[in-house]
């Protein structure tokens, strides 16, 4: 074994640490690039929404469907869509496009209705539901193909060209928002009998409008001004003020580690959640996705692993340190 001095050894160890630092610092750039853009948020005031009682289809729902129809799936005909081999099922909504009481690939916003008892009276609550556009969206972070991303403006987008339809995003979303359509997308070009499941669809907060300085279609269409759209900080403040004003509650500020959608309600969200759970359990298939609940303070799927980050970043340093120690000791022992 060659002889090295302690100084040599320190120099070599420092060099390996430096290399790691250079790699890490390169990552700050994309993170910083975001700071120039306004991040938007929405406030959904449940004291204002009446579910458009006078209409067959709530105004926000029909506006959303009209505005986004060009983005809806165009799968092959139903009878040509394969089951998810070896399973005997597929998620095909192409003959149920008219459904509006749940989230589907053709219906990105739905208005839920519950009766909640609070302070001795029964309150009817109508809740427009769609993607919350979370601050640290697990749906986009965990996509194995990078087919989803959070934009600088806030909306979380699914790339319909790249999505393989594994529906993992739906599993890790606390509200199970993304909906799957089979028979469309990239997997159809590979081996649709055996691999892939389709493409996931959900609200993109009318990103094509937002980037043009317009409001999302649902916001604009609401006759009661129940959905507001503005810079996220401003919206958050309005939500808190409104909640104070009506002695009510906010949902979406803490949930999933923070979102850019703020619901304000007179009745506690725990009670709304309870009613939604009850409704869901009475359904023919209580497991069916597309009926989001409202779990209060629900955590983020990534919380656990993000807790491991220190250990992760320490691993190379620890490996280098132990190696240095072992090598140095061996050298002293003349091996």
């Amino acid at each position, binding site marked *: *074994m*060659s002889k*090295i001095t302690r100084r040599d050894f320190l120099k*070599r*160890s420092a060099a*390996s640490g430096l290399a790691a630092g250079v*790699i*890490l610092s390169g*990552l700050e750039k*994309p*993170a910083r*690039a*975001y700071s120039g853009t306004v991040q938007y948020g929405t406030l959904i005031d449940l004291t204002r929404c009446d579910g458009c009682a006078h209409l067959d289809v709530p105004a926000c729902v029909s506006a959303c469907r009209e505005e986004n129809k060009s983005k809806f799936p165009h799968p092959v005909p139903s009878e040509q869509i394969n089951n*998810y081999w*070896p*399973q005997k099922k597929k998620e095909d909504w192409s003959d149920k496009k008219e459904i509006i009481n749940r989230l589907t690939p053709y219906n990105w916003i739905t208005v839920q209705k519950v009766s909640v008892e609070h302070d001795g009276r029964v309150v009817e609550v109508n809740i427009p539901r769609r993607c919350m556009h979370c*601050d*640290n969206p697990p749906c*986009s*972070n*965990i*996509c*194995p*193909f*990078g*087919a*989803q*991303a*959070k*934009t*600088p403006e806030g909306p979380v*987008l699914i*790339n319909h060209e*790249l999505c393989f339809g*594994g529906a*993992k995003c739906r*599993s*890790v979303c606390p509200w199970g928002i993304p909906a799957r359509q089979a028979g469309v997308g990239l997997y159809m070009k590979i081996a649709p009998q055996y691999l892939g*499941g389709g493409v996931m669809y959900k609200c993109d907060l009318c990103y094509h409008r937002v980037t043009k300085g317009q409001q999302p279609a649902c916001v604009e269409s609401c006759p009661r001004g129940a959905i507001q759209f503005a810079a996220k900080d401003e919206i958050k403040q309005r939500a808190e003020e409104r909640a104070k004003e009506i002695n009510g509650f906010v949902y979406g500020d803490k949930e999933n580690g*923070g979102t850019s959608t703020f619901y304000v309600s007179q009745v506690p969200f725990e009670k709304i959640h309870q009613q939604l759970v009850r409704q869901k359990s009475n359904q023919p298939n209580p497991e069916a996705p597309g009926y989001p609940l409202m779990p209060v303070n629900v955590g983020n*799927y990534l919380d*656990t*692993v*993000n807790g*491991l*980050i220190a250990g*992760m970043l320490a*691993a*190379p*340093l*620890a*490996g*280098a340190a*132990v*190696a*240095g120690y*072992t*090598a140095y000791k*061996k*050298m002293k022992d003349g091996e």
Partner: protein
Amino acid sequence: MGKIKRHGLSVRFVHWAVAISTIALIFSGFGQMPVYKRYMIDQLPGLAWTSDFSINLLIHYTAAGVLIFAVAYHIVYHIIRKEFDIWPRKGDFKESYLIIKAMLTKGEEPESDKYLAEQRLAYAYIGVMLIVIIISGIIKVLKNLPSISLEMDTLIWVSTVHNAATILLILGIVGHLAAFVFKANRPLLPGMFTGWVDEDYARRRHGVWYRKIQEDKKTNLQHK
């Protein structure tokens, strides 16, 4: 029959830490896609956990920590000790062709140093893939933090590089294990477990290395 020391504890630790963590990473990496549920692997006895994304992610992170530790250990340890026996050399492609030809035709093999030319190439190939996977993996880990968000194009690149390098790594590992289908390579196996190989084998196949060891022994004796 005499035995000869081939690998110290450090080398064996690194090899097995890398091998076991890599296998765990590949398994849990596939578990990042919904494959175990879709193909009903989770219905097999004892494998119900495989369709749980959280468990797979936890295994993936933990195994990645072990792999990164071992790789850092490996690099620093051998640089400090200036041990570069397994670093690829000029002419390795031609030499490994001759060795493989000799194995297939039972002909005469060129004499080797501590490692055969194809081992040096295998090392470089697997090493490059691991580094690429580690760097893209660290970026993927960092973007999961609330404070770090990447643009869609960057995400697509990083994911594609991570996935493609994994496929190439799997091919490399299959090739590595296939090497032991040949009887000629099997005497190396005990070396990776115990650290010792047959002296006969070393003299016959790794002549360059064998002579170096004999000379080292002589000079060491002279010094003492």
